[in-house]
Protein backbone atom coordinates (compact mmCIF):
# COMPACT_ATOMS: atom_id res chain seq x y z
CA UNK A 1 0.00 0.00 0.00
CA UNK A 2 1.22 3.47 -0.87
CA UNK A 3 0.48 6.77 0.76
CA UNK A 4 -1.92 8.99 -1.19
CA UNK A 5 -2.84 12.62 -0.53
CA UNK A 6 -5.84 13.35 1.61
CA UNK A 7 -8.39 14.72 -0.81
CA UNK A 8 -10.85 17.55 -0.37
CA UNK A 9 -13.58 15.59 -2.12
CA UNK A 10 -15.29 18.39 -4.00
CA UNK A 11 -14.34 20.58 -6.94
CA UNK A 12 -15.95 23.65 -8.44
CA UNK A 13 -15.29 26.34 -11.02
CA UNK A 14 -14.05 29.63 -9.51
CA UNK A 15 -14.00 31.79 -12.63
CA UNK A 16 -14.01 32.02 -16.41
CA UNK A 17 -12.06 34.08 -18.93
CA UNK A 18 -12.06 34.51 -22.69
CA UNK A 19 -10.17 36.01 -25.58
CA UNK A 20 -11.26 36.75 -29.14
CA UNK A 21 -9.07 38.17 -31.89
CA UNK A 22 -9.97 41.75 -32.85
CA UNK A 23 -10.48 41.02 -36.56
CA UNK A 24 -14.19 40.57 -37.38
CA UNK A 25 -14.97 38.71 -40.61
CA UNK A 26 -18.59 39.13 -41.69
CA UNK A 27 -20.56 37.03 -44.16
CA UNK A 28 -20.32 39.94 -46.58
CA UNK A 29 -16.52 39.69 -46.35
CA UNK A 30 -16.77 36.01 -47.29
CA UNK A 31 -19.17 36.74 -50.17
CA UNK A 32 -16.33 38.78 -51.66
CA UNK A 33 -13.95 35.86 -51.29
CA UNK A 34 -15.85 32.69 -52.26
CA UNK A 35 -19.11 31.83 -54.04
CA UNK A 36 -21.47 32.07 -51.06
CA UNK A 37 -24.18 34.33 -49.66
CA UNK A 38 -25.09 35.74 -46.28
CA UNK A 39 -28.49 34.04 -46.58
CA UNK A 40 -26.91 30.63 -47.31
CA UNK A 41 -24.49 30.89 -44.38
CA UNK A 42 -27.13 32.06 -41.90
CA UNK A 43 -29.66 29.40 -42.91
CA UNK A 44 -27.17 26.49 -43.02
CA UNK A 45 -24.91 27.22 -40.05
CA UNK A 46 -26.40 30.23 -38.26
CA UNK A 47 -23.27 32.41 -38.31
CA UNK A 48 -23.37 36.18 -38.99
CA UNK A 49 -19.77 37.01 -38.20
CA UNK A 50 -16.70 35.38 -36.72
CA UNK A 51 -13.31 36.40 -35.32
CA UNK A 52 -10.16 35.47 -37.20
CA UNK A 53 -6.69 35.63 -35.66
CA UNK A 54 -4.24 38.28 -36.75
CA UNK A 55 -0.52 37.57 -37.18
CA UNK A 56 0.04 38.36 -33.50
CA UNK A 57 -2.45 35.71 -32.33
CA UNK A 58 -1.23 32.15 -31.74
CA UNK A 59 -2.81 29.23 -29.89
CA UNK A 60 -0.42 30.03 -27.02
CA UNK A 61 -0.99 33.79 -26.99
CA UNK A 62 -4.77 33.40 -27.03
CA UNK A 63 -4.51 30.78 -24.27
CA UNK A 64 -2.42 33.21 -22.19
CA UNK A 65 -4.98 35.99 -22.71
CA UNK A 66 -8.00 33.87 -21.77
CA UNK A 67 -6.15 32.04 -18.98
CA UNK A 68 -4.89 35.33 -17.54
CA UNK A 69 -8.42 36.70 -17.34
CA UNK A 70 -9.73 33.54 -15.65
CA UNK A 71 -6.83 33.62 -13.20
CA UNK A 72 -7.39 37.30 -12.36
CA UNK A 73 -11.12 36.71 -11.86
CA UNK A 74 -10.49 33.72 -9.58
CA UNK A 75 -8.79 35.79 -6.88
CA UNK A 76 -5.94 33.27 -6.80
CA UNK A 77 -2.26 34.07 -7.37
CA UNK A 78 -0.26 32.40 -10.14
CA UNK A 79 1.65 30.42 -7.51
CA UNK A 80 -1.59 28.82 -6.35
CA UNK A 81 -2.05 27.04 -9.69
CA UNK A 82 -0.42 23.61 -9.81
CA UNK A 83 -1.87 22.15 -13.01
CA UNK A 84 -2.40 23.74 -16.42
CA UNK A 85 -4.29 21.90 -19.18
CA UNK A 86 -4.56 23.37 -22.67
CA UNK A 87 -7.14 21.70 -24.88
CA UNK A 88 -6.26 22.32 -28.52
CA UNK A 89 -6.24 20.48 -31.83
CA UNK A 90 -4.95 23.32 -33.99
CA UNK A 91 -1.54 24.18 -32.56
CA UNK A 92 1.10 24.32 -35.33
CA UNK A 93 4.09 23.16 -33.34
CA UNK A 94 3.44 19.99 -31.35
CA UNK A 95 6.83 20.18 -29.63
CA UNK A 96 7.23 21.74 -27.13
CA UNK A 97 3.75 21.48 -25.73
CA UNK A 98 1.71 24.65 -25.34
CA UNK A 99 0.65 24.33 -21.70
CA UNK A 100 4.12 24.74 -20.19
CA UNK A 101 4.82 27.89 -22.20
CA UNK A 102 1.41 29.32 -21.32
CA UNK A 103 2.00 28.62 -17.64
CA UNK A 104 5.38 30.38 -17.66
CA UNK A 105 3.98 33.42 -19.47
CA UNK A 106 1.31 33.68 -16.78
CA UNK A 107 3.91 33.51 -13.99
CA UNK A 108 2.77 30.06 -12.88
CA UNK A 109 5.89 28.28 -11.62
CA UNK A 110 6.46 24.59 -12.37
CA UNK A 111 2.88 23.33 -12.56
CA UNK A 112 1.92 20.05 -14.14
CA UNK A 113 1.28 21.08 -17.74
CA UNK A 114 -0.05 19.20 -20.72
CA UNK A 115 -2.00 19.65 -23.94
CA UNK A 116 -5.10 17.60 -24.62
CA UNK A 117 -6.59 16.79 -28.01
CA UNK A 118 -10.22 15.76 -27.90
CA UNK A 119 -11.02 18.01 -30.86
CA UNK A 120 -14.09 20.18 -30.30
CA UNK A 121 -14.87 18.25 -27.09
CA UNK A 122 -11.45 19.15 -25.64
CA UNK A 123 -12.55 21.67 -23.03
CA UNK A 124 -15.25 19.38 -21.62
CA UNK A 125 -12.74 16.51 -21.43
CA UNK A 126 -10.20 18.81 -19.75
CA UNK A 127 -12.75 20.09 -17.25
CA UNK A 128 -13.57 16.49 -16.30
CA UNK A 129 -9.87 15.74 -15.75
CA UNK A 130 -9.36 18.97 -13.79
CA UNK A 131 -12.29 18.20 -11.53
CA UNK A 132 -11.12 14.64 -10.88
CA UNK A 133 -7.53 15.82 -10.25
CA UNK A 134 -8.71 18.24 -7.57
CA UNK A 135 -11.09 15.74 -6.02
CA UNK A 136 -8.42 13.09 -5.49
CA UNK A 137 -5.71 15.57 -4.49
CA UNK A 138 -3.44 15.41 -7.57
CA UNK A 139 -3.83 19.17 -7.89
CA UNK A 140 -5.23 21.97 -5.73
CA UNK A 141 -6.05 24.57 -8.36
CA UNK A 142 -6.22 23.88 -12.08
CA UNK A 143 -6.22 26.32 -14.98
CA UNK A 144 -8.17 24.76 -17.86
CA UNK A 145 -7.96 26.43 -21.27
CA UNK A 146 -9.41 25.73 -24.71
CA UNK A 147 -7.52 27.66 -27.41
CA UNK A 148 -7.90 27.21 -31.15
CA UNK A 149 -6.63 28.85 -34.30
CA UNK A 150 -8.75 27.00 -36.86
CA UNK A 151 -8.00 29.61 -39.52
CA UNK A 152 -4.57 27.98 -39.96
CA UNK A 153 -6.29 24.75 -41.06
CA UNK A 154 -8.97 26.13 -43.34
CA UNK A 155 -8.91 26.10 -47.14
CA UNK A 156 -10.04 29.68 -47.79
CA UNK A 157 -11.18 28.65 -51.26
CA UNK A 158 -13.54 25.97 -49.87
CA UNK A 159 -16.92 27.58 -49.29
CA UNK A 160 -18.26 24.58 -47.35
CA UNK A 161 -15.77 25.01 -44.52
CA UNK A 162 -14.31 28.53 -44.57
CA UNK A 163 -17.66 30.04 -43.55
CA UNK A 164 -17.83 27.90 -40.37
CA UNK A 165 -14.52 27.93 -38.54
CA UNK A 166 -13.03 30.69 -36.41
CA UNK A 167 -10.46 31.48 -33.72
CA UNK A 168 -10.52 32.19 -29.99
CA UNK A 169 -9.89 30.91 -26.48
CA UNK A 170 -11.77 30.35 -23.24
CA UNK A 171 -10.59 29.31 -19.79
CA UNK A 172 -11.73 28.35 -16.31
CA UNK A 173 -10.10 27.91 -12.91
CA UNK A 174 -11.11 24.75 -11.02
CA UNK A 175 -10.50 24.54 -7.28
CA UNK A 176 -11.28 22.46 -4.22
CA UNK A 177 -14.76 22.94 -2.87
CA UNK A 178 -16.72 21.64 0.11
CA UNK A 179 -19.47 20.44 -2.22
CA UNK A 180 -19.53 19.28 -5.84
CA UNK A 181 -19.83 22.12 -8.33
CA UNK A 182 -18.85 19.96 -11.30
CA UNK A 183 -20.87 16.84 -12.09
CA UNK A 184 -19.43 13.55 -13.34
CA UNK A 185 -18.12 13.74 -16.90
CA UNK A 186 -19.76 11.36 -19.37
CA UNK A 187 -17.41 10.77 -22.25
CA UNK A 188 -17.00 8.44 -25.19
CA UNK A 189 -15.87 8.04 -28.76
CA UNK A 190 -16.64 6.36 -32.07
CA UNK A 191 -13.39 5.71 -33.92
CA UNK A 192 -15.24 3.75 -36.57
CA UNK A 193 -16.35 7.16 -37.85
CA UNK A 194 -12.90 8.77 -37.83
CA UNK A 195 -13.37 9.49 -41.55
CA UNK A 196 -16.26 11.90 -40.97
CA UNK A 197 -14.08 14.85 -39.85
CA UNK A 198 -10.40 14.97 -40.79
CA UNK A 199 -7.62 17.01 -42.36
CA UNK A 200 -7.84 16.76 -46.13
CA UNK A 201 -4.33 16.46 -47.64
CA UNK A 202 -3.12 16.67 -44.04
CA UNK A 203 -3.79 20.40 -43.91
CA UNK A 204 -7.41 21.40 -44.55
CA UNK A 205 -10.34 20.73 -42.22
CA UNK A 206 -12.98 18.66 -43.95
CA UNK A 207 -16.21 17.17 -42.68
CA UNK A 208 -19.02 15.14 -44.17
CA UNK A 209 -21.75 17.58 -43.30
CA UNK A 210 -24.73 15.25 -43.58
CA UNK A 211 -23.09 12.44 -41.60
CA UNK A 212 -21.99 14.82 -38.84
CA UNK A 213 -25.43 16.41 -38.76
CA UNK A 214 -27.13 13.02 -38.47
CA UNK A 215 -24.77 11.88 -35.71
CA UNK A 216 -25.07 15.03 -33.63
CA UNK A 217 -28.84 15.43 -33.97
CA UNK A 218 -29.81 11.81 -33.34
CA UNK A 219 -27.31 10.49 -30.78
CA UNK A 220 -25.81 13.24 -28.65
CA UNK A 221 -28.87 14.27 -26.63
CA UNK A 222 -28.59 10.86 -24.95
CA UNK A 223 -25.07 11.74 -23.76
CA UNK A 224 -26.34 15.07 -22.43
CA UNK A 225 -29.24 13.41 -20.61
CA UNK A 226 -26.88 10.84 -19.10
CA UNK A 227 -24.69 13.64 -17.71
CA UNK A 228 -27.78 15.14 -16.07
CA UNK A 229 -28.84 11.81 -14.63
CA UNK A 230 -25.37 11.02 -13.26
CA UNK A 231 -25.26 14.43 -11.55
CA UNK A 232 -28.77 14.00 -10.14
CA UNK A 233 -30.08 17.03 -12.00
CA UNK A 234 -33.51 17.19 -13.64
CA UNK A 235 -33.80 18.89 -17.05
CA UNK A 236 -36.25 21.32 -15.42
CA UNK A 237 -33.50 22.52 -13.06
CA UNK A 238 -31.21 23.74 -15.86
CA UNK A 239 -30.61 27.45 -16.25
CA UNK A 240 -28.83 26.95 -19.55
CA UNK A 241 -27.55 24.45 -22.09
CA UNK A 242 -24.13 25.27 -23.54
CA UNK A 243 -23.15 22.76 -26.23
CA UNK A 244 -20.19 23.04 -28.59
CA UNK A 245 -21.04 25.78 -31.07
CA UNK A 246 -20.71 23.64 -34.20
CA UNK A 247 -23.72 24.81 -36.16
CA UNK A 248 -26.81 26.62 -34.90
CA UNK A 249 -29.12 24.00 -36.37
CA UNK A 250 -27.28 21.24 -34.50
CA UNK A 251 -27.37 23.29 -31.28
CA UNK A 252 -31.11 23.90 -31.55
CA UNK A 253 -31.91 20.33 -32.57
CA UNK A 254 -30.11 18.84 -29.56
CA UNK A 255 -31.66 21.46 -27.26
CA UNK A 256 -35.19 20.54 -28.38
CA UNK A 257 -34.62 16.92 -27.35
CA UNK A 258 -33.53 17.65 -23.78
CA UNK A 259 -36.96 18.32 -22.30
CA UNK A 260 -35.72 21.58 -20.78
CA UNK A 261 -37.75 24.32 -22.51
CA UNK A 262 -36.93 26.83 -19.78
CA UNK A 263 -33.17 26.52 -20.31
CA UNK A 264 -31.38 29.31 -22.13
CA UNK A 265 -29.56 27.82 -25.13
CA UNK A 266 -26.11 29.18 -26.01
CA UNK A 267 -26.13 30.73 -29.49
CA UNK A 268 -22.64 32.19 -29.33
CA UNK A 269 -21.88 30.76 -32.78
CA UNK A 270 -23.89 33.60 -34.34
CA UNK A 271 -21.10 36.09 -33.62
CA UNK A 272 -18.16 33.81 -32.72
CA UNK A 273 -18.30 31.05 -35.35
CA UNK A 274 -17.17 27.50 -34.61
CA UNK A 275 -14.06 27.76 -32.43
CA UNK A 276 -13.71 24.03 -31.63
CA UNK A 277 -12.60 23.42 -28.03
CA UNK A 278 -12.77 27.14 -27.25
CA UNK A 279 -16.47 27.39 -28.03
CA UNK A 280 -17.92 26.12 -24.75
CA UNK A 281 -15.84 28.28 -22.37
CA UNK A 282 -16.08 31.24 -24.76
CA UNK A 283 -19.87 30.99 -24.80
CA UNK A 284 -20.05 30.53 -21.02
CA UNK A 285 -17.76 33.47 -20.40
CA UNK A 286 -19.70 35.79 -22.71
CA UNK A 287 -23.06 34.70 -21.28
CA UNK A 288 -21.80 35.40 -17.75
CA UNK A 289 -20.52 38.83 -18.85
CA UNK A 290 -23.96 39.66 -20.24
CA UNK A 291 -25.56 38.66 -16.91
CA UNK A 292 -27.42 35.70 -18.42
CA UNK A 293 -26.03 33.12 -15.99
CA UNK A 294 -26.43 34.12 -12.35
CA UNK A 295 -23.98 32.83 -9.76
CA UNK A 296 -25.02 29.39 -8.57
CA UNK A 297 -27.01 28.51 -11.67
CA UNK A 298 -26.82 25.02 -13.14
CA UNK A 299 -25.58 24.63 -16.71
CA UNK A 300 -25.23 21.55 -18.92
CA UNK A 301 -22.18 21.46 -21.21
CA UNK A 302 -21.70 19.14 -24.19
CA UNK A 303 -18.66 18.83 -26.44
CA UNK A 304 -18.37 16.77 -29.63
CA UNK A 305 -16.10 16.58 -32.63
CA UNK A 306 -13.51 14.81 -34.75
CA UNK A 307 -12.67 11.31 -33.59
CA UNK A 308 -15.53 11.10 -33.28
CA UNK A 309 -15.44 12.05 -29.60
CA UNK A 310 -17.95 13.51 -27.18
CA UNK A 311 -18.32 14.50 -23.52
CA UNK A 312 -20.91 16.16 -21.30
CA UNK A 313 -21.11 17.37 -17.73
CA UNK A 314 -23.13 19.63 -15.48
CA UNK A 315 -21.44 22.65 -13.89
CA UNK A 316 -22.33 25.30 -11.35
CA UNK A 317 -21.69 28.89 -12.38
CA UNK A 318 -19.34 30.66 -9.94
Amino acid at each position, binding site marked *: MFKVPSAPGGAAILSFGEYQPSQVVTNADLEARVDTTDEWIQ*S*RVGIRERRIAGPEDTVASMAVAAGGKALAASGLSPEDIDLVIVATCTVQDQIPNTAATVATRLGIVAPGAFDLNAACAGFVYALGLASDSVRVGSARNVLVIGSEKLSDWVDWEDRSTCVIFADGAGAAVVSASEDHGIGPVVWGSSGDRADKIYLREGKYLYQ*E*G*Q*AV*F*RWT*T*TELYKVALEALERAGVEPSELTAFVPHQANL*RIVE*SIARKLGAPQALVARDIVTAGNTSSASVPLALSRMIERGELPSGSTVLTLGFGAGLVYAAQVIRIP
Partner: protein
Amino acid sequence: MALSEQEILAGLGEIVEEIVGTEPSDVTPEKSFVDDLDIDSLSMVEIAVAAQDKFGVEIPDDQLKDLKTVQDVINFIQK
Protein backbone atom coordinates in the same frame (compact mmCIF):
# COMPACT_ATOMS: atom_id res chain seq x y z
CA MET B 1 -47.03 -5.22 -44.12
CA ALA B 2 -46.12 -3.16 -47.16
CA LEU B 3 -47.36 0.41 -47.16
CA SER B 4 -49.18 1.77 -50.17
CA GLU B 5 -47.78 4.65 -52.18
CA GLN B 6 -50.60 6.86 -50.87
CA GLU B 7 -49.80 6.00 -47.25
CA ILE B 8 -46.12 6.81 -47.73
CA LEU B 9 -46.96 10.05 -49.53
CA ALA B 10 -49.25 11.11 -46.69
CA GLY B 11 -46.54 10.24 -44.15
CA LEU B 12 -43.92 12.21 -46.07
CA GLY B 13 -46.31 15.18 -46.23
CA GLU B 14 -46.55 15.17 -42.43
CA ILE B 15 -42.77 14.88 -42.08
CA VAL B 16 -42.04 17.74 -44.48
CA GLU B 17 -44.62 19.94 -42.75
CA GLU B 18 -43.04 19.22 -39.38
CA ILE B 19 -39.49 19.95 -40.56
CA VAL B 20 -39.87 22.92 -42.92
CA GLY B 21 -43.53 23.97 -42.48
CA THR B 22 -44.65 23.20 -46.04
CA GLU B 23 -48.37 22.39 -46.56
CA PRO B 24 -48.69 18.59 -46.84
CA SER B 25 -50.84 19.05 -49.96
CA ASP B 26 -47.83 20.65 -51.70
CA VAL B 27 -45.82 17.47 -51.20
CA THR B 28 -46.65 15.61 -54.40
CA PRO B 29 -44.68 12.80 -56.10
CA GLU B 30 -43.13 14.84 -58.92
CA LYS B 31 -41.77 17.58 -56.63
CA SER B 32 -38.02 17.99 -56.24
CA PHE B 33 -37.02 18.48 -52.60
CA VAL B 34 -34.33 21.04 -53.41
CA ASP B 35 -35.85 22.93 -56.34
CA ASP B 36 -39.58 22.82 -55.57
CA LEU B 37 -39.86 22.38 -51.82
CA ASP B 38 -36.79 24.48 -50.87
CA ILE B 39 -35.35 21.75 -48.67
CA ASP B 40 -31.59 21.87 -48.10
CA SER B 41 -29.13 19.03 -47.50
CA LEU B 42 -29.39 19.20 -43.71
CA SER B 43 -33.19 19.19 -43.78
CA MET B 44 -32.96 16.13 -46.07
CA VAL B 45 -31.09 14.36 -43.26
CA GLU B 46 -33.89 15.31 -40.85
CA ILE B 47 -36.44 13.94 -43.32
CA ALA B 48 -34.45 10.71 -43.65
CA VAL B 49 -34.28 10.30 -39.88
CA ALA B 50 -38.01 11.01 -39.48
CA ALA B 51 -38.81 8.62 -42.34
CA GLN B 52 -36.80 5.91 -40.61
CA ASP B 53 -38.81 6.43 -37.41
CA LYS B 54 -42.10 6.42 -39.31
CA PHE B 55 -41.54 3.69 -41.90
CA GLY B 56 -38.73 1.64 -40.35
CA VAL B 57 -36.53 2.01 -43.45
CA GLU B 58 -33.03 3.43 -43.05
CA ILE B 59 -31.91 5.87 -45.73
CA PRO B 60 -28.09 6.10 -45.49
CA ASP B 61 -26.35 9.41 -46.26
CA ASP B 62 -24.62 8.01 -49.35
CA GLN B 63 -27.99 7.10 -50.90
CA LEU B 64 -29.75 10.24 -49.74
CA LYS B 65 -28.06 12.37 -52.42
CA ASP B 66 -29.67 10.25 -55.17
CA LEU B 67 -33.18 10.81 -53.86
CA LYS B 68 -34.14 13.98 -55.71
CA THR B 69 -37.93 13.83 -55.80
CA VAL B 70 -40.71 12.79 -53.47
CA GLN B 71 -41.32 9.81 -55.79
CA ASP B 72 -37.66 8.74 -55.37
CA VAL B 73 -38.16 8.54 -51.61
CA ILE B 74 -41.45 6.67 -52.00
CA ASN B 75 -39.73 4.14 -54.26
CA PHE B 76 -36.83 3.76 -51.83
CA ILE B 77 -39.17 3.09 -48.90
CA GLN B 78 -41.27 0.63 -50.91
CA LYS B 79 -38.22 -1.25 -52.17
